[in-house]
């Protein structure tokens, strides 16, 4: 099978069905590398940054930080080389959008990187790709080889005299290396664990140099903004969240896959119209809207536009746009076991709350699932999650606490039923 192309496409994925789009020649035939040429030959670095700022492009890695603003944090001048790190360490469970952007659109991403490099006058880009992404990694490598052979990257980018190198590095499979400073540590050959801030990467990033870290998809949008202008870009999505994104839908749906849609598309529309609704004629129970670290929404609350300004009102966030759908058979305690196991295993272990909290959450939830929990345990879960939130070096502890808080907010009854019955009351649920 394999997810060859998205079911719904827009500007990012328009040509992903064309096999030659992955090659330099095919990419150029469809206007590829013209946006970079335009930026490097007709625009000043500041003009490029201002254009991206004006577009309102938000980072697509999960936190949604405005990309142009981030670029503007990079110090100008000085004797230190400036670096870019492209975060291709996609490993949030439920997220698989960057994979296709790399497999089918590596040139598109690289073009965004070169434009960003011009804007920030960066000397070098490190693409940090997760180790398990052997296929996407190979796609990046092929595209890089073509770009160097054609003089697009390297000592004289596109013949303009601008110098920019792009280096590919494969990670070794830790989720935390997708956190931007954990990524930088790993990139430097150290154990992947987030850095305390300050200093921030724009002052002290990769190898101590000013560095901007952006996600694969964020860079992929850039050429379109340069080609068509910020106003065109803002024509997609909502006022506050412009552009499209690639929603990845997985779980109990008839047609799981990738769907490039404007931000602000309603969640129920994505599930029922695009992903074919709940599979096997079952009823919907809950939906994780943006990758596993985002709080779940119950079936009754999916009439929401997929953009942070709306999702926040329902105490969740867009995250990576990875939508995980769960039907009525799902035991939410079991689902919580899976979620907390993941975070327990992936916590880097630096901060007390995260190291000890993730393990304790998982142990208690596992015990509740076994039928050996108490009502007090449920309160303790909420208490631990509260202690973990917002108190650590990076957002990992929040990412581990939020889904538990979401489960308790909307599915506390599932937990209480386990306690009352002394066993799991969902015989049809997935096996642990």
């Amino acid at each position, binding site marked *: 099978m394999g997810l060859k192309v998205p079911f719904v496409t827009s500007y990012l994925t328009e040509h992903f069905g064309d096999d030659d789009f992955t090659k330099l020649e095919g990419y150029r035939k469809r206007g590829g590398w013209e946006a970079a040429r335009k930026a490097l030959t007709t625009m000043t670095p500041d003009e490029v940054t201002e254009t991206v700022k004006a577009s309102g492009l938000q980072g697509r890695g999960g936190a949604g930080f405005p990309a142009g603003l981030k670029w503007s944090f990079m110090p100008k001048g000085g004797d230190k080389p400036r670096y870019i790190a492209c975060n291709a360490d996609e490993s949030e469970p439920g997220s698989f959008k960057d994979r296709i952007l790399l497999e089918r659109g590596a040139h598109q991403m690289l073009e965004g990187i070169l434009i960003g490099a011009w804007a920030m006058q960066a000397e070098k880009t490190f693409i940090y790709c997760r180790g398990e992404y052997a296929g996407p990694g190979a796609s990046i490598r092929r595209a890089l080889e073509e770009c160097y052979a054609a003089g697009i990257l390297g000592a004289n980018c596109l013949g303009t005299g601008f110098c920019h190198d792009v280096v590919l590095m494969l990670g070794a499979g*830790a989720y*935390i290396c997708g956190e931007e400073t954990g990524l930088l540590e790993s990139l430097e050959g150290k*154990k992947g664990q987030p850095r*305390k801030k*300050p200093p921030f990467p724009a002052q002290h990033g990769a190898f101590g140099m000013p560095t901007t870290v952006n996600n694969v998809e964020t860079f992929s949008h850039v050429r379109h903004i340069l080609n068509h202008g910020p106003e065109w870009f803002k024509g997609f999505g909502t006022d506050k969240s412009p552009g499209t994104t690639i929603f990845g839908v997985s779980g109990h749906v008839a047609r799981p896959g990738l769907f490039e849609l404007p931000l602000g598309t309603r969640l129920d529309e994505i599930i029922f119209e695009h992903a074919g609704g709940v599979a096997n004629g079952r009823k919907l129970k809950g939906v994780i809207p943006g990758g596993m670290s985002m709080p779940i929404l119950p079936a009754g609350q999916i009439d929401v536009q997929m953009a942070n300004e709306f999702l926040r009102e329902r105490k969740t966030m867009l995250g990576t746009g990875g939508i995980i759908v769960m039907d009525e058979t799902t035991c939410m305690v079991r689902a919580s076991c899976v979620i907390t196991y993941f975070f*327990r*295993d*992936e*916590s*880097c*272990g*630096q*901060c*007390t*709350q*995260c*190291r*000890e*909290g*993730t*393990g*304790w959450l998982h*142990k*208690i939830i596992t*015990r509740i699932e076994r039928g050996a929990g108490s009502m*007090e345990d449920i309160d*303790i879960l909420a208490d*631990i999650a509260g*202690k973990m939130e*917002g*108190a*650590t*070096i990076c957002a990992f502890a929040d990412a581990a606490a939020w889904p538990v808080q979401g489960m308790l907010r909307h599915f506390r009854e599932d937990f209480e039923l386990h306690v009352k019955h002394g066993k799991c009351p969902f015989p049809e649920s997935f096996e642990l």
Partner: protein
Amino acid sequence: MAKLSVDGVDYEVADGRTILQALDDLGLLMNGVDVPHYCWHPKLSVDGSCRLCQVEVEGFPKLQIGCNTPIKDGMVVRTKSERVKKAREGVMELLLVNHPLDCPICDQAGECKLQDYAFEYGATHARTEEPRRALKKRVDLGPTITFDQERCILCRRCVRFCREVSETGELGVFNRGDHSVVETFPGTKVDNPYSMNIADICPVGALTTKDFRFKIRVWFLEEPPGICTGCANGCNVFLGVANNKVYRYVPRRNDAVNETWICDSGRMTYKQIGAADRLERAMLRSAQGTLEATAYGQAIDEAAARLRRLVQTKGPGVIAGVASAFASNEDLAIFRRFLAALGTDLAGVAIPTGEADDLLIKAEKAPNGEGARLLGFADAKGVADRIRGGRVEGLVVLGHDLLGPGYFGSEQELAKLDTVIVLDTHRSELERVSHVLLPVRHAAEKHATYTNHAGRVQRSWPVIEPSFEAYADGEVLSRLGAALGLAGFDGKFEVGEVSRGLGKLASAFRGIDLESVGEQGLPVAMKAG
């Protein structure tokens, strides 16, 4: 300078400091302003991971960690609010989730920060039902340290110490999350000249020194200040004292001398105080040629008689004095006066030497070589040459370093001397050629000042009383001077008075004496020209 308000009190602090550094600079940290912390240490890089030092900073919606929040002018910090208290309670509960709570059999109990803060911020009962992490116990980390992995709270002070201070890097944190453990890298041991500091900075009972563990419960110890006498650095220590015995040295912070560290070999010099080879009895060479224990006063009289005879028959010029760099400034001041009153100018100081490094360890392996030089004692090599040349017949020696490789190497060449009078803390080969042996006190047994390699004058206090008759070198020499009837010697030795007189003897000591140096010491005046 920046203005900083902490709990409603305004302070002026240096620029570029973090909240904890500023509180530390002001001397307030855990000493008026309680911001409990585990991973932060004033002499190590910031880790920011224990999260215990969270405080409220005006303008920040979230609590901020004091260890990594730079002070901005006008910053307002609160350390006592309910939010801060709750955060500390939260961290403490989580730190204890996997802790074995084995305080009754843990040697750190009584000086354990986990115990202290749990007492203050911990819950009265645990809410955990699940089994705690089972990890390695009694790990042999190297020649000096035993490690209990279960007690470790992963503050990583030891890891950073080995990377940043000893620069040996033997330790790392392996694995992730709640399966993280501190271990040595494969094939390595924690084996460096500063290894035992990691037991000092370990806030819990995970790292303990093989030397001290299970020797005594720390609550039986008094910990008066003092200095290490292992080399010319004079590292500041606390002496762990109980039952009139010194059980250990632990480093005492002095940023001008040893920061918060001490080397392993210096730390072990506490053993010299109660060593089996202490010189415990005054002794005299008998007519049969054997050494016989005798009353102290009789030994002094005999020493005086021998010296008087030499002066009367050969003149004072045949008598030489060899000072020790283990003797204090006060002892040496008296020795100088003694030799002058006797009429000899033949004197030097014997200083043992050895390896040095860039951190603390100095080549001169005694605490007061610089004091001896400032008080006019040249190196004893000159005296040694005179002795070899046969021009010396009587010798008054403090200590036995004259036998060191830089001087005589052995006692044999001294055998031909008519009179050898030795004042020493410990027994040595010098016994074989001495005629009078007089036990003296160790630094930990007397009030005294010492001048370290950099000219910093520091002091010791009497923290134990020797179980045998022994006096400070200065006192013995005062009595000997009186017995000889030397001018200015009445047999009394008042160390404070001698100390106050140091400045008259050598201008470098002006304004410096036992009282003024305090616990942190004072630098001598710059040498003119």
